[in-house]
């Protein structure tokens, strides 16, 4: 388990101090995929770097499996870091080493016997699907392939935790999905606890089970992703879920946000609604996808001004098991 207790991080700047993290308290249970979401400059990258103490907090405790890292010696800290893999937005591969030699790097650090290291490298490259690229150099790979190498490298020492710092932000949507799938597999099959730092709600939505929202150096909200998604409390969470433009749009009448968490099967819901309730439905925003015949995502529709029609729509939605929220 990863725990932060009263974590504070300050940086000296030209005119005083910059508070990057302010009284952070958070627990991340083993086995989950935990998202930490926020806009750039919110402090999320600093927060993830406090987990393996790449950044030393000014105050507070970072406790991993009961041990306070802030108090650990240099040698002990290096041992602990081998139990916490990390991948980055910029991949950070050694450019002068082959794929295989990059994955070998963490094994070299702990002087793993060559035979054993070779076996481990084979295993890892198979896991990330890059056996055929073992002898290639990073410059010959695509972004997604580079991130796969980085993942293999981060897992080489068999860590219990994996930190991802905007790991998919430099990738195109398709590649992002394939990397997210890979991370999901790693979580499920190897039981690795994953902490994902991101500014994209999509990433959190598609693989995280828990999420913390960080804004202006503070955690403003945390909990299950499904709860946050259906009922965001903080302004920033609302902003991340729905772009402000759509929320503030001066469409006459009330709006309703329909939330699909996979409990509704794929069917022509809106046209059925329109027919059964005898109303015209105007879709203002929709971001849904169908996975295994189930709908995930959300949709904003304009409501008729007629109260009876509104009641009918709500009855219809209740009957079909769609979660909704008025006024977005």
């Amino acid at each position, binding site marked *: 388990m990863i725990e932060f207790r009263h974590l504070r991080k300050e940086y000296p700047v030209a005119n005083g101090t910059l508070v990057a993290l302010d009284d952070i308290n958070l627990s991340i249970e083993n086995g989950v995929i935990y998202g930490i979401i926020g806009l750039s400059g919110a402090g999320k990258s600093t927060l993830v770097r406090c987990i393996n103490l790449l950044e030393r907090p000014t105050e507070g405790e970072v406790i991993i499996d009961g041990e306070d890292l802030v108090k650990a010696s240099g040698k002990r800290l290096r041992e602990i870091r081998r139990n916490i893999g990390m991948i980055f937005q910029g991949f950070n591969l050694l450019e*002068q080493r082959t794929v295989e030699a990059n994955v070998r790097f963490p094994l070299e*650090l*702990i002087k793993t016997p060559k035979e054993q290291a070779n076996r481990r490298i084979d295993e890892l490259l198979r896991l990330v699907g890059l056996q055929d690229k073992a002898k290639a150099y990073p410059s010959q790979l695509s972004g997604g392939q580079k991130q796969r190498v980085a993942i293999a490298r981060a897992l080489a020492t068999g860590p219990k935790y994996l930190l991802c710092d905007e790991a998919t932000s430099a990738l195109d949507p398709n590649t992002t999905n394939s990397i997210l799938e890979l991370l999901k597999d790693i979580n499920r099959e190897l039981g690795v606890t994953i902490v994902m730092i991101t500014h994209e709600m999509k990433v959190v939505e598609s693989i995280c089970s828990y999420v913390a929202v960080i804004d202006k150096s503070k955690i403003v909200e945390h909990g299950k992703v499904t709860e946050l998604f259906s009922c965001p409390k903080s302004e920033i969470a609302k902003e991340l879920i729905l772009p402000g433009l759509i929320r503030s749009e001066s469409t006459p009448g009330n709006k309703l946000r329909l939330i699909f968490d996979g409990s509704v099967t794929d069917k022509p819901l809106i046209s059925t609604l329109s027919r059964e309730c005898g109303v015209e439905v105007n879709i203002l925003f929709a971001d849904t996808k169908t996975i295994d015949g189930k709908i995930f995502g959300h949709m904003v529709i304009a409501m008729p001004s007629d109260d009876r029609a509104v009641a009918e729509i709500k009855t219809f939605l209740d009957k079909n098991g769609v979660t909704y929220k008025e006024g977005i």
Partner: protein
Amino acid sequence: MSELLKQLFQSGEIYKHAWITIWTTLLSTLIAYLIGLPIGVLLNVTDKDGLRPCVPLNRALGLIVNILRSMPFVILMVAFLPVAKFFVGSSTGNAAMLVMLIIAAAPYVARLVESSLKEVDRGVIEAARSMGASNLQIIFKVFLPEAKPSLIVGAVISTVTILGYSAMASTIGGDGLGKVAIIYGHQRFNEDIIWVCVAFTVIIVQIIQEVGIFIAHKTDKRIRKIKKRRVL
């Protein structure tokens, strides 16, 4: 062609001096690297953004390097005559010349190494730290290998610079093409000898450059490689 030039060729004297220029340059570059490389690493590591910041040591080293770097070679030679005497027992001749070249080249090498290491991506260093690498492991397994192409280019630049210095070393009685050009050429009014020496040095420099840059290019595995044709 002057008589003296003919004599220089017939006796093989000119080749002997060219050869001395080559080996004094290469040997002093090598020794300068043995001293300058660790200093360059230390300058990088102790920098306030370095692996192990130590500002007082960084400042002190930087000051020594800067003083030596700002001394013109001719002045440095006369100023450090006692040092040469201490190390090789003489303040003139080829051995003294080697000492002078090393004193002049080591700080130059240190700065070149320092700047090569600065080019290494900080993200890669961070990744290595996240994997539990110690500072020494980062130096030997990340900094130096990742900066290798740039370090090789630096070595080419220092070799060429030292070759230039070595020509001045005839002032303290060092042999080489510099001596031939000044004593047999300039002082005895044989302009053709000067130009022969120029031709020799141009050839030597070109060979060093081409070979060095070829190796740097060959070892570089990045997309944006060190340029093959590079103005040194």
